[in-house]
């Protein structure tokens, strides 16, 4: 749910090359006949899925604690993790409520952040080839991590295994640890004493960080931050966040080949989601900008 590689791989493949790596010899769901290689890649995908699930699940603790600190009940936090099940949106909804925003102001940014999953689902559709109830289940498990792990594999069997193991693994870990966090949060007298408000800010920074590599993205983030800062005293809580999203549309709709030769679209410069070695135990974290870029 942190996004990381998934956005980059998505944008890089939006031209329909998503099936590229799947054109290999192993296309069957079983993959048994193809021998050891497929089994090997599948096992690798599952290993990656498990480590991503555990790592992602862990910060379900912080979500659960924050949700309760924002005034949600344990059950309300749990419904978000079970049904909404997309971390950025969950943090956004809770963050706006914490800042005093109203219901609509909280739902809108959550929905806008959740729109990523729409793109992932469209892209994963032909790759997963699902029908009936599996298609519904697959849709619900479509998040940054499952998309990233799936798209990072090179044959279809491994892509499917990566998707299901990551989607199900994150769902289980995320929900279990949301409960732990929510229960822990509900015994704290004042969440500020525990620094939970700062933890929420750090969570947004952590979600933002891996996406900041391209120069154009940094400019957008800076513009959005300034808009939010300047408009906060004048707007009811929640609205500055929506206003800042307009910045993205403005920058995103500028002609890409404009200004100074930065013609490459965001994300297309980093197709690494599909090509990076899958062994990295933080497969979804492979997009961290290098130190020099990140500090800029």
């Amino acid at each position, binding site marked *: 749910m942190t996004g990381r590689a998934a*956005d980059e791989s998505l944008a890089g493949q939006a031209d329909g090359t998503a099936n590229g790596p799947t054109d290999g010899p192993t296309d069957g769901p079983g993959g048994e006949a193809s021998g050891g290689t497929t089994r090997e890649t599948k096992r690798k995908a599952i290993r990656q899925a498990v480590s991503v699930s555990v790592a992602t699940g862990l910060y379900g603790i912080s979500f659960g604690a924050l949700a309760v600190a924002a005034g949600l009940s344990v059950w309300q936090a749990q419904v978000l993790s079970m049904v909404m099940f997309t971390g950025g949106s969950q943090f956004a909804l809770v963050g706006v409520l*914490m800042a005093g925003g109203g219901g609509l102001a909280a739902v809108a940014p959550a*929905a806008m952040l959740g729109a990523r999953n729409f793109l992932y689902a469209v892209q*994963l559709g032909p790759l997963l080839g699902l029908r009936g109830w599996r298609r519904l289940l697959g849709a619900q498990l479509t998040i940054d991590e499952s998309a990233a792990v799936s798209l990072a594999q090179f044959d279809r069997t491994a892509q499917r295994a990566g998707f299901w193991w990551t989607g199900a693994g994150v769902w289980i870990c995320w929900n279990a640890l949301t409960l732990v966090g929510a229960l822990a949060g509900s015994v704290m007298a004042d969440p500020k004493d525990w620094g939970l408000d700062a*933890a929420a800010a750090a969570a947004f920074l952590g979600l933002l960080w891996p996406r900041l590599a391209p120069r154009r993205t940094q400019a957008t983030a800076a513009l959005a931050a300034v808009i939010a*800062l300047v408009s906060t005293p004048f707007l009811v809580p929640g609205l500055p966040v929506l206003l800042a999203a307009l910045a*993205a549309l403005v920058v995103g709709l500028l002609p890409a080949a404009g200004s100074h030769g930065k013609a490459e*679209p965001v994300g297309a410069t980093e197709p690494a989601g599909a090509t990076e070695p899958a062994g990295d135990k933080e497969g979804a974290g492979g997009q961290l900008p290098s130190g020099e870029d990140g500090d800029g």
Partner: protein
Amino acid sequence: MSNAAIWGTVLAGSGVCLVLKLVGAYVPQSWLGGERTGRVMGLVTVSLLAALLVVQAVGNGQGLTADSRLIAVAVAGLALWLRAPFIVVVIIAAAVAAGLRALGFP
């Protein structure tokens, strides 16, 4: 906010996010609209997160306040720069803010 209003917000937000996933699973890939859709979506994500970060770090209702949160976020940025994992970054930020407040910092 009343409990019923929070439930309404939780259910509405969950419903919208779930529907977005479901619709995505049923539309053909040609509906994506090419590279520009992905680019705009990526930028919307980044600007929302940046705005949420600012509001959470210095916002105080309709006011702006520089307090322990800002220092905690700066330390979190340092931790990210040193490639600390997400959960560690969040815990460090909470610990810094909690520590500063225990020392009497706002």
